[in-house]
């Protein structure tokens, strides 16, 4: 078992005192970020990205991935105690989590949520441990046409499975790619789309885009909705934990179902949200007492949390093996990889085994630390949301400004952040999905060079995408996904609206 030996090496890295310290900091920061309105995993990671420039890459990725786990845990706290889903995939957790909290069983609901998150994550991590090396090995054979095929599949999944308006999803993908093209052309060295200005020469930075779109945009939305925070108090004591643990063991089927759904859906981009709803739906269907769902069934907390956390973990699988992120947060981490001077993709396993295996091992340690910290400090994290809005909002804007400035030390980026904030606000209101745009912005250069290299290889003939069986399958599959939203109404006999 080569993987096992590698994993042991990873643990040696992840268990070093410095990295454990980093992981703990990451979890705490991540949970705070997950709890705060307007800050989520993606822009939390983006804001803290500049800090990691001074760290060794392995510690840097441990910090960022732990922020991600923390944000996932934090989302559960707000969903259950405040009925505010911190992230889209914790929406399903509010259905039963908040009723439970109102009945004074908040401690139980939180414990159940944390334990199921932990279980889902652990399940997916084990899968990642065994499948990541295999996928990486397999994809070593990939050339530019195959990589372009995978990228196309990623984006067509947003169009075909995203559920939103297809032209709007496509428009958002195109905007992301166009923004990525601004600035220096990587192949010919020409300046592009700068309209003769100096400001546009550097192009758009994805970190700034993420902070603006998700952070500022989200705050503007929250203010407009005039969200009132009416929280429910809850304490998690050792007695609640042990009692809930005993109670939880009877729902083992829900756990395993959720973990499988989550791990499977998470590999596809944007999979965590549908995974949590799907898992909730299945749990209700197979439950002995489905009528309790919606009024505080503990299974209704377990199912979505297990799936969402499993999906969150397995979203990192395509990122470390293929260099294709499965979620906006993974996209930001991927961008981080490039900034630290690492080339994402299958070669990472060969060239930087200590990085990859350190990351995988830190998924184990990070989630153990995470579940302990959130169980111990729930009241502290819940107290953050009780801070007055007039303190929270300007502080978040200020932190966002610091984050966008620090990427490139440029005040222009703070202006861009505000601009992206307005764009994010308008797009959210008009139902343009933002995640595909961010992914396109991060992957733009890679996709373009894959396309141009392929065309150079074939001297301009698009037939190269069907030359190898792998790329032929990928391109055909993505073409089918692309047209799916246009043909599915006809298949169902509704013939459009």
């Amino acid at each position, binding site marked *: 078992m080569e993987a096992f030996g590698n994993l042991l090496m990873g643990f040696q890295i992840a268990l070093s005192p410095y990295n454990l310290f980093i992981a703990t900091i990451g979890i705490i920061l991540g949970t705070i970020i997950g709890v705060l309105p307007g800050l989520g995993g993606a822009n939390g990671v983006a804001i803290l990205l500049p800090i990691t420039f001074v760290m060794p890459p392995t510690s840097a990725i441990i910090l960022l991935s732990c922020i991600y786990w923390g944000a996932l845990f934090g989302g559960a706290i707000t969903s259950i105690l405040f009925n505010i889903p911190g992230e889209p995939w914790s929406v399903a957790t509010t259905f039963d989590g908040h009723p439970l909290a109102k009945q004074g069983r908040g401690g139980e609901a939180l414990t159940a949520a944390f334990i199921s998150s932990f279980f889902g994550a652990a399940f997916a991590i084990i899968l990642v441990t065994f499948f990541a090396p295999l996928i990486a090995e397999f994809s070593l054979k990939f050339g530019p046409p195959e990589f372009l095929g995978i990228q196309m599949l990623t984006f067509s999944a947003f169009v075909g499975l995203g559920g939103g308006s297809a032209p709007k999803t496509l428009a958002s993908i195109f905007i992301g790619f166009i923004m990525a093209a601004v600035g220096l052309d990587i192949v010919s060295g020409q300046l592009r789309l700068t*309209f003769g200005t100096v400001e546009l020469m550097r192009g758009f930075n994805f970190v700034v885009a993420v902070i603006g779109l998700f952070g500022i945009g989200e705050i503007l939305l929250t203010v407009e909705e005039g969200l009132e925070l009416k929280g429910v108090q809850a304490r998690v004591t050792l007695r609640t934990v042990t009692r809930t643990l005993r109670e939880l063991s009877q729902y083992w089927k829900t756990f395993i179902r959720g973990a499988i759904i989550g791990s499977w859906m998470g590999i596809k981009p944007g999979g965590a949200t549908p995974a949590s709803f799907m898992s909730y739906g299945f749990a209700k269907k197979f439950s002995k007492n489905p009528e309790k769902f919606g009024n505080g069934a503990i299974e209704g907390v377990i199912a979505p949390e297990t799936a969402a956390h499993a999906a969150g973990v397995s979203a990192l699988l395509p990122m470390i093996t293929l260099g294709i992120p499965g979620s906006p947060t993974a996209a930001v981490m991927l961008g981080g990889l490039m900034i630290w001077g690492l080339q994402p993709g299958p070669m990472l396993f060969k060239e930087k085994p200590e990085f990859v295996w350190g990351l995988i091992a830190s998924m184990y340690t990070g989630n153990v630390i995470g579940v302990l910290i959130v169980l111990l400090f729930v009241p502290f994290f819940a107290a953050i949301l009780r801070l007055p809005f007039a303190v929270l909002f300007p502080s978040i804007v200020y932190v966002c400004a610091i984050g966008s400035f620090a990427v490139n030390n440029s005040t222009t980026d703070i202006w861009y952040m505000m601009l992206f904030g307005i764009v994010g606000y308008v797009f959210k209101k008009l139902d343009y999905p933002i995640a595909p745009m961010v992914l396109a912005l991060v992957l733009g250069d890679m996709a373009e060079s894959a396309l141009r290299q392929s065309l150079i290889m074939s001297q301009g003939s698009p037939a190269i995408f069907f030359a190898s069986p792998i790329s032929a399958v990928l391109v055909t599959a993505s073409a089918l996904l692309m047209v799916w939203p246009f043909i599915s109404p006809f298949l169902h006999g509704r013939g459009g609206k």
Partner: protein
Amino acid sequence: MRRADIACALVLLFLGGLVLWESLKLKIGWGLNGPEAGFFPFWLATGLVVCSAVIAIKAFLDRSSFARWPFVQKGAWVPVIKVALPAFVMVALTEAIGLYPAALIYLAVYMRWIGRHRWITTFLVSVLLPVVSYFIFDKWFLIPMPKGYWTWISGLY
């Protein structure tokens, strides 16, 4: 909502056209090193133009209840402006006096004007937050934040 939808699509259409124009200038054909610089943006912009045209037409024909919703509920503009405007002012101030003083003013004004907090809380938060972040970023992580044009202010700290 319908008018906003159409307006947004038209803005995207315009931007797409702008990119098309620029990429045509860069040449979209086949050069010495394979496809030329304008090739990829050209097709992206074509896609964007087509999509935004479709969105605009769909929105124009849309008579559903979603379309009749106002883009922003009556009166909800006020809190949005109240958050957005001071933030823009802070960014503008950053250019002049640096991020930390700008943040101090921003936090203080916001907490006092919108939050109606007591002077003592306003003072504590608006002074402490920039000071703490100064030590974290400028001193600990050695990431200097913008100091602004007027150096006599940044000379104070």
